[in-house]
């Protein structure tokens, strides 16, 4: 499907690792507790349903998504199970608010968390590669996991080369029993451009 050398694969994983590390640090500041991360995993698939992320296809998840555009483009997503989202919002708010207000604020709060987390990831990657990346406004969706990447009126799945690179990192907040994951989805053209930038970065770094 796409051929990455071991070093390229390792470098892309490390780029994501740096980005998600920064994101975890941001999340940890917000919730005032440690955030644990898994090692990033890269998979190439033709359909989202081919990934093991869709192992609970009917689970309803909350997701904040931002498209990004620059030398490579795609969609970044922060995903967590729906039933834990209010709990997450409660741990983010440092001011006491009534339950009604908490529920009203839920979507706003999750969008802002997504904005901070996803920008931390993308910003770190941009800074390492030295390439500016433009991010869209965050959008919120709540749906079954199997339909996570379905976008009304188009989207990455409808590209002419339906190859997706899924970069998956899981995060855990043990005190609140919350876990979720970050996804980066890119099509074939963008994957190739990212690979090219990684090659240049390695060439510069290694002399």
């Amino acid at each position, binding site marked *: 499907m796409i051929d990455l050398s071991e070093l390229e694969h390792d470098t892309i994983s490390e780029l994501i690792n740096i980005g998600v590390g*920064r994101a975890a640090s*941001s999340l940890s*500041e*917000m919730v005032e507790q440690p955030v644990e991360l898994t090692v990033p995993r890269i998979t190439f698939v033709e359909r989202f349903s081919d990934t093991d992320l869709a192992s609970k296809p009917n689970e309803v998840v909350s997701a904040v998504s931002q498209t990004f555009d620059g030398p490579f483009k795609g969609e970044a997503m922060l995903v967590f199970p729906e039933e834990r989202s209010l709990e997450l919002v409660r741990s983010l*708010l*440092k*001011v006491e608010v009534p339950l009604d207000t908490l529920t009203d*604020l839920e979507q*706003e*709060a999750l*969008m*802002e968390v997504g*904005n*901070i987390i*996803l*920008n*931390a990831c*993308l*910003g*770190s990657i*941009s*800074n390492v590669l030295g390439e*500016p*990346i433009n*991010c869209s*406004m965050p959008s919120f969706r709540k749906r079954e996991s199997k339909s996570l990447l379905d976008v009304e009126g188009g989207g990455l799945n409808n590209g002419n080369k339906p190859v997706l690179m899924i970069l998956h990192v899981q995060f855990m907040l043990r005190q609140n029993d919350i876990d979720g994951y970050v996804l980066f989805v890119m099509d074939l053209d963008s994957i190739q451009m990212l690979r090219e930038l990684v090659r240049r970065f390695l060439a510069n770094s290694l002399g």
Partner: protein
Amino acid sequence: MAQQRSVLLVDDSKFARLLVKAFISSNFSNWEIDEAEDGNKALEMVEGKSYDYLLLDFNMPGMNGLELGEQLRGRFPDAVIALLTANIQQEIQKKAASLGLEFLAKPPTEEKIRDFIAAQEAAR
């Protein structure tokens, strides 16, 4: 007790405004804090009032925080104007510096906001 100041928070996220307002209020209780959800609203608000501190998000509908900051810098040469944003890209930080804007990375925390303002107050 610090001198009374006026603050304008510009952020399309109600949640972000709520947090930052709470952090400022709990440390600088007599300060006046106004809010705008985008750049156009902020420009309307500064027509009738001047501010000592203007904290601007970067990624907003309509004009972004740098475009807004550039206009506000011309209008308020002595005010503290800061980008308070999740967008930590060096490109954005350099542009902010070149426009005379401070840079604060989100997430906003009480300590971060309090220390930033205290340092600015000490420098006045």
